[in-house]
């Protein structure tokens, strides 16, 4: 019974590790994919902002950025997390009308807004499904009405959970006229890594107040993601350490209860190493049971969490073999470490005392 409970405890620790780290990686992955979809090579955001979404830059900087040799196109973007009337928080992006970003959208229903449709909007398929919106339906945001002219599907959770408005309309809505959060930069020769490094260096030299990051590096540098990642790791590690103490406690209790049994094994000729191995194997079996049970539970939990409407659009669950192997290695290590001390105690028992133990 106690071993079953310990195995369940380890399983919960493993499951929480898989779910939390999987969520953290899922968030990174979803964000990175949404940026990669756009054919953006470099993101430019205010160097003084703590977090990408809180940055604010002058929209007119786009002309200066475009002057840099090697930069092919620049698209200013205002991004914010907005709560709809019924409480659902969605990511809204404002794009300069006619910029290259619009061309990256894979329209599934309806069409892109025309240049003169100032209150036009397009919506990701997942979001449209969640809030039951069809092309030509209206959506009200902070008292302003927008017409959803089309539904797009990019295949990445974050993109498909977004609403996209024209930049001027979104600036008006937020009261941030002439401001953008980021600039999307498309390079003329992104495949040439030397050229990429050269362009980034020029950009840094010419615009010290702006932070430039390659799109594929953005998730590594983002502070919010770093905090989220650190939280996921620390929570999971605490859970796993609790698992270690559960193994230790269970085996210590077990050894204490089985003192006589260990004495008998010693009396019939079991060597210390055999007794030690037996106890370590017990620890390993508990860890292995915990891994098997916890992996299934963690994967289920992660899928369930990623399917919640509050999370949809922000996370693409990432369950890799590496993640399972990582947590398995940690759990097995803890199983062995947790059983070594009780095993050592067991082999140190005097067989005569152990045989007399009641």
């Amino acid at each position, binding site marked *: 019974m106690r071993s079953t409970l310990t195995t369940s405890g380890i399983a919960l620790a493993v499951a929480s590790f898989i779910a939390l780290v999987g969520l953290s990686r899922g968030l990174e992955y979803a964000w990175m994919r949404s940026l990669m979809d756009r054919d953006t090579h470099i993101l430019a955001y205010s160097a003084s902002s703590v977090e990408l979404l809180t940055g604010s830059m002058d929209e007119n900087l786009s002309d200066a950025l475009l002057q840099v040799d090697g930069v092919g196109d620049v698209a200013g973007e205002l991004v914010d997390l907005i709560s709809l009337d019924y409480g659902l928080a969605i990511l809204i992006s404002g794009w300069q009308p006619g910029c290259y970003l619009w061309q990256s959208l894979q329209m599934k229903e309806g069409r892109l807004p025309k240049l003169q449709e100032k209150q036009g909007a397009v919506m990701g398929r997942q979001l449209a499904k969640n809030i039951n919106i069809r092309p030509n339906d209206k959506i009200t945001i902070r008292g302003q009405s927008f017409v959803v002219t089309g539904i797009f599907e990019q295949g990445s959770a974050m993109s498909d959970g977004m609403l996209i408005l024209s930049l001027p309309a979104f600036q008006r809505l937020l009261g941030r006229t002439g401001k953008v959060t980021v600039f999307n930069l498309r390079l003329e020769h992104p495949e040439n890594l030397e050229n990429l490094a050269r362009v980034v260096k020029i950009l840094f030299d010419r615009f010290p107040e702006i932070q430039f990051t390659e799109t594929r590096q953005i998730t590594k540098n983002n502070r919010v993601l770093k905090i989220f990642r650190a939280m996921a790791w620390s929570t999971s590690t605490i859970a796993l350490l609790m698992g270690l103490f559960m193994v230790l406690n269970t085996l210590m209790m077990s050894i204490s209860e089985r003192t006589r049994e260990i004495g008998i094994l010693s*009396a019939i*000729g*079991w*060597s*210390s190493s055999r007794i030690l191995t037996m106890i370590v194997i017990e620890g390993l079996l508990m860890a292995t049971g915990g891994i098997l049970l916890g992996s299934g539970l963690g994967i289920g939990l992660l899928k369930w969490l990623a399917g919640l409407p509050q999370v949809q659009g922000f996370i693409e669950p990432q369950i890799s073999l590496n993640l399972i192997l990582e947590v398995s290695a940690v759990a097995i290590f803890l199983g062995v470490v947790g059983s070594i001390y009780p095993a050592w105690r067991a082999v140190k028992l005097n067989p*005569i005392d152990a*045989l007399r133990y009641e």
Partner: protein
Amino acid sequence: MYNAITQLEGVSRYYDGGRVKALEDLTLRVDYQEWLTIIGPSGSGKSTLLHLMCGLDRPSRGHVFFEGKEPRSIREWTHLRSRKIGFVFQSFNLLPTLTTLENVALPMFGLVHSAKQRRSNALDLLERVGLANRARHRPTQLSGGERQRVAIARSLANSPTLILADEPTGNLDSSSARNIMKLLKEIHFKERISIVLVTHNPSMMNYDDRLVKVIDGSIV
């Protein structure tokens, strides 16, 4: 071959920093194929003597030899207990979570690598003690006499040359006790295994046994 399977020379065993003297300057030999009965009142040092003979305990003074050699390390004694010495306890000392078959097979771990072979050997041993039909039972489902038979089967698991039996009938009624003694005698005569039997019950002795009486840690 040495005549003595085990030999104790000038052995003393003290506890509690020398304040308690369990055995004092004791010399004793047990020959191959011999049956030795050690009698004496409770607390006279009989069990301590058995424990010293199989290395479960170490003498405070003196020497213990097995087959002419003096094992000096725990490892050497463990090796001997696993291959040459069988032990039968008064309280049976079977593992309650295992079946009788598994209990009998327990000493074979590490020596007989095939699980199938271990099962087969254990079943043969249970058959020899008349309990093959109880192979799947747990010790708690057996009578006292049956449990002791299982313990005897276990002591034979690795074909020992010496069986040490510590009050094997102490927890049994007189009928079961007689049966256990008969079984041990059978094993002794048929397989020529040396047996050292400790008892405080004179009715368990035979007149043809070699008898040693221990009182207050000394042979009298």
